[in-house]
């Protein structure tokens, strides 16, 4: 019996796929690129291969890293009132709740809009770069990819971008507000993240990480 193959009642588990949401079990079919296989019971997409997706995902993940790091240093909003002006960078936002228990909020905001998007992009690169370039997968690729998937709901760059827009309106009558470079970087990050999530096909990724 080859290593990693599990036998239940004489049949191998190879080629079986369980819906992660509702647990219905299917025999996986070969899905042509560009098409999707969804669970018949709960309509969760199970398999959705795309041609050249690997390279595109790597490019998008790299873009995300550059955008997050860049956005840290540029101001994203600037206000002016009665000759006084103030600019805010992400760093300012992260440290805006100083003193007392509000530091927790600061920490949560930083993790949600900077740390997790960055970490997710890097874990994706760690998992996919060797596979796409036909090298053996990294030893911890499985754990890295699982972690990246678990982080998905907690990575909130797109929500932050909407938050920027809301803030803009809220203080419009208090001061004159202009959008800075980092705001556009965040807007770009939103597009990149959505595109990346659309391209990743979990079934193909898992199969290439551990072929058996």
């Amino acid at each position, binding site marked *: 019996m080859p290593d990693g193959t599990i036998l239940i009642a004489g049949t191998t588990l190879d080629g079986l796929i369980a819906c992660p*949401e509702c647990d219905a079990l299917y025999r996986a079919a070969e899905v042509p690129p560009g098409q999707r296989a969804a669970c018949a019971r709960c309509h969760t997409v199970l398999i959705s291969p795309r041609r050249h997706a690997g390279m595109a995902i790597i490019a998008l993940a790299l873009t995300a890293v550059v955008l997050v790091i860049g956005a840290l240093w540029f101001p994203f909003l600037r*206000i002016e*009132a009665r000759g006084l002006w103030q600019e*805010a960078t992400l760093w300012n*936002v992260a440290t*805006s709740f100083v003193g007392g228990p509000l530091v*927790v909020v600061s920490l949560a*905001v930083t993790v949600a809009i900077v740390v997790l998007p960055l970490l997710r992009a890097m874990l994706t690169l760690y998992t996919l770069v060797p596979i796409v370039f036909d090298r053996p997968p990294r030893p911890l690729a499985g754990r890295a990819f699982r972690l990246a998937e678990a982080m998905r709901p907690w990575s909130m760059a797109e*929500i932050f971008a909407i938050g920027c827009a809301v803030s803009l*309106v809220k203080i419009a009558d208090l001061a004159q507000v202009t959008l800075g470079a980092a705001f556009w970087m965040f807007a770009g990050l939103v597009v990149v993240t959505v595109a990346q999530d659309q391209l990743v096909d979990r079934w193909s990724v898992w199969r290439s990480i551990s072929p058996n």
Partner: protein
Amino acid sequence: MGTPRCGRCGSRLVSRDPKSISRVWAWWALGVMAYIPANVWPMLNTRTLFTVQESTIIGGAVELLLDGNVGISIIILVASVGIPIAKFVCIAFLAMSVRGGSRTSPELRMRLYEIVEYIGRWSMIDVFVVAILASLVQLNVVANIDPGSASLAFALSVIFTMLSAQAFDPRMIWDGIEAEARTHA
């Protein structure tokens, strides 16, 4: 040996976790508890030249509405009041529905669960807005905005509710129909 783990990704393998529902309710209760001070305490303290103003979540939204920013005020109300309350109701409903036979179809409950999971994170908008405003509006005497204690309560409420939704195992929605099919057969 301990708990069995997936040979591929190392995640804990368990067919149906009997404690899943207890965890859902525990996080749910924490979320509800944090949501109360989040609405009572001030979210923002705004100081301008001559006035000091403390506004709660709903107070801030009403203010925006009176200023004529209907769209933004609706976004805030939906994200900070509508979504959290709908989430509490939906999670409670889902957790109760897997106990006994529910008359609502599994398809519908699954859809509900997906919506709850997808939409929960959007409640964080208000926390981000507070963070942005507090870091940006520091113009000494002219205008100054500081975060209020509700921001902490609100952030915790959102996080707890997200954890509650994640603790729920959607597979349990479907276990019922299999048992039902067996009794009919």
